[in-house]
């Protein structure tokens, strides 16, 4: 039994190899980029717009709003990284309904890669925002004694980020695989639906946690926007 799609290797040349994780990731990347390109090819700047454009605007608007709500000012600076995190994880989970597909996020390599990206992105954005001194100073706050704990915290949370996503995604796929051998018909469908929900939740958690870490590193808390008023109000 395969625990990770890494184990499904299509091609290998020494250290280089092409496994299912990379292939499915490319597929997702292609789908996302091509879909975006298709929809945004004829973007309308008027009031009238297409359904797909509406959908993408809702998604992007939601991400921007979430980033603002967490407390990051200038969400356009971070939406490239954070938004892509969310969309990649979410789409990777959603695609589990496709037979034969294995989510790349069910690979600990992928989640580790994503976690490492966050691990690098946090000091990157922190330094970009408040300078090297300003960022490093945050490790000795409130006192110097806290320095080792802060470093441990930084590393452990990255590890937790990676393992959490991997565990959830892998377990979903594993449970479906196991259940298919026991109760092949109805139960796996229910579990797949549950897995979709779990995937969406994990995508959201991963995205929010990364946002929170970056927000903590930048200390730039923009004004929390007021909740949008309903038209009826």
């Amino acid at each position, binding site marked *: 039994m395969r625990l990770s799609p890494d184990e499904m290797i299509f091609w290998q040349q020494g250290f280089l190899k092409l496994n299912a994780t990379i292939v499915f990731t490319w597929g997702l990347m292609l789908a996302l980029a091509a879909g975006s390109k298709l929809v945004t090819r004829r973007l309308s*700047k008027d009031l009238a717009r297409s359904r797909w454009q509406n959908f993408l605007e809702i998604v992007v608007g939601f991400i921007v709003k979430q980033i603002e709500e967490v407390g990051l000012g200038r969400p356009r600076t971070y939406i490239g990284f954070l938004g892509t995190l969310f969309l990649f994880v979410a789409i990777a989970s959603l695609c589990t309904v496709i037979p034969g597909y294995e989510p790349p996020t069910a690979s600990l390599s*992928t989640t580790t890669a994503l976690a490492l990206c966050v691990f690098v992105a946090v000091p990157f954005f922190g330094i970009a925002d408040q300078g090297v001194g300003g960022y490093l100073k945050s490790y000795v706050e409130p006192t110097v004694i806290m320095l080792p704990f802060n470093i441990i915290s930084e590393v452990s949370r990255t590890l937790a980020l990676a393992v959490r996503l991997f565990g959830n995604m892998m377990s979903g796929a594993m449970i479906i695989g196991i259940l298919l051998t026991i109760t092949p018909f109805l139960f796996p469908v229910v579990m797949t639906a549950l897995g979709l929900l779990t995937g969406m939740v994990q995508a959201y958690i991963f995205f929010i946690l990364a946002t929170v870490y970056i927000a903590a590193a930048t200390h730039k808390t923009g004004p929390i926007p007021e909740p949008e008023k309903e038209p009826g109000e």
Partner: protein
Amino acid sequence: MLIDWFTVGAQALNFLLLVWLMRRFLYKPVLNAIDAREKLIAAELADAVAKKADAQKERDEFQKKNQEFDRQRVSLLDKATTEATAERQRLLDEARNAADSLRARQQDALNRDQQSLHDEITRRTREEVFAIARKTLTDLSGTNLEERICDVFTRRLRELNGEAKDGLAKAVRASRGPIPVRSEFDLPAKQREMIQKALNETLSADIPLRFETAPALIGGIELTTNGQKVAWSIAEYLALMDASIGELLKKGAKPRDTPEIKPGAKPKPETRPDTAKEPV
């Protein structure tokens, strides 16, 4: 080993590539489109606000003009009404004045006509009355009457005293020639003697007299010399009455209550014949 480090590196690269792709194809264009639309909406809202403000301003201006127009209209109407009222009053006054003056002229003409008619009637009546009286008295004049007239005249001569007597004496003395004594009828010798005697006795002198007849003296005798006159005649009474009636009519012509002279009314002489003052 669950972690394949080559895969980790590849996935990290893949992810970074995906970040770039998504930024290039999704976030940037979509956010730009949203921004453009928001700008468009903001511009349209601002435009709407400006238009609303303009409309409000124009409405205010229009209302102001309307109010101004109303006020002018009311004031013009008031002015026109006042002028019309004044004009009407002026025309009414003019018409009233014209009517008044016309009525006054008509009244004057009527009064004049009435007065002239009245005067004419009065004059005719008076003339008729005196003509009748004169004729009657002329007809009645006779010996007895003449004697009686002569008696009255001689008694008057005798009763002269004071200034009248002195004046007469002076006049008689100043006169040259006989003193004329006129009467309507030719006096008989007896009466001539009576008169001569009475005068002589009164003035204590012999005075020459010349007796003449004068038909105008209706039933009367008259002695005239140097502005002094002693007389008695019915014509004198008639003349006095005539004068008196004439005066009365003149007075009565002014007020409305002009006393009408009835043809049958007798004129009252102010003095009795025997006490009448002699006209000097």
